[in-house]
């Protein structure tokens, strides 16, 4: 199996995860497309340095989240973009409106968190255990627990405000 084949399989297996990360860290489709491409590119660049010390999913979340927070915002018109809108748009078009509405509220809540909390929240929603969240974020498992409690508090405050 060639490196290229292995890599494309990893991306295909995790395209949904990349899509969710890009939705949380961007505010419009243009930025989302750009970030999607940037994450795939950074994963490709980092693939050689992946030695299997951690799980592939841990490595992937780490690179994807790091790319999302370090992306320097650019002007709107720039370069060509591969039509991932075909991927992303088809996915969202098929939802029913009620679900779409609930999803919007969920994203609004997450976007109200700070960068550190956003990452933790995403991993929590992805069903990651405290240990894995700790390994991706670099926090201790107990600190992850404290942060999650704070996030819950923050979410409650957001609901009260609304």
């Amino acid at each position, binding site marked *: 199996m060639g490196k290229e084949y292995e890599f494309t399989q990893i991306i295909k297996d995790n395209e949904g995860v990349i899509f969710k990360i890009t939705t949380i860290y961007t505010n419009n489709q243009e930025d989302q497309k750009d970030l999607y491409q940037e994450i795939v590119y950074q994963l490709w660049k980092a693939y050689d340095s992946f030695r299997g010390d951690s799980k592939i999913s841990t490595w992937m979340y780490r690179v994807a989240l790091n790319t999302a927070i370090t992306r320097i915002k650019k002007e709107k018109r720039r370069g060509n973009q591969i039509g991932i809108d075909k991927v992303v748009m088809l996915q969202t078009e098929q939802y029913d409106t009620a679900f779409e509405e609930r999803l919007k509220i969920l994203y609004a809540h997450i976007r109200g968190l700070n960068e550190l909390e956003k990452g933790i929240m995403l991993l929590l929603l992805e069903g990651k255990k405290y240990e894995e969240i700790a390994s991706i974020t670099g926090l201790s498992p107990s*600190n992850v627990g404290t942060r999650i409690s704070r996030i819950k508090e923050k979410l409650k405050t957001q609901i009260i405000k609304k």
Partner: protein
Amino acid sequence: MELEEMQSIWSELSGQLEKQKKLTDKMIIMMTQDKFRSKINKIAYPELLGTIICFGSAILILMNLNKLDNWYNMISGIVSLLILIILPILSLTSINRMRKVEIATNNYKETLLSYAKRKKQFQTVTKWGYYLGFILMFTIMPITTKILNNKDLFSETKRVWPFLIAIPLAIVFFIVFSKWVMKFYNKNINSAESLIKELEDTGI
């Protein structure tokens, strides 16, 4: 919305996305190639163009230093020269540092911390660039007239009133514009600072 409800929506979303996978091998390879090309373009154009203009102007001043035959022209020349050389170097260095955050090896906390620090540095450099740019606006005037037209702006200018209008206007513009710019930069620097503080307070 409670966390449990969020988790249920998220899991529904994950299920929908899982069913609708669309990426092909070709699209993935094209994405990496296209991004690589756009990265080269991004580095090549805006930053290098600005640097070339600054360095070009600096070389022009340097080659004509002998024409600056009195103390105020000489001071203006040296100040302009320093700003035109130092500013692009500082700006390019800080942007480059921001780009060199170790995405592949750092964990999320390290990346956030490192990026926030570099972002703060970049914003500070940009803020100083703005102040220095304002100084440059004034220092470049006498040397431009001297180098390009061989005229001394202060002793050979017959009409003073254009300056009496232009200089106060430039100052007013600077004050208004600086307030707007500073508001933007301070907001960014403060948010970077609070993130750094929060992360440094967090024991691993």
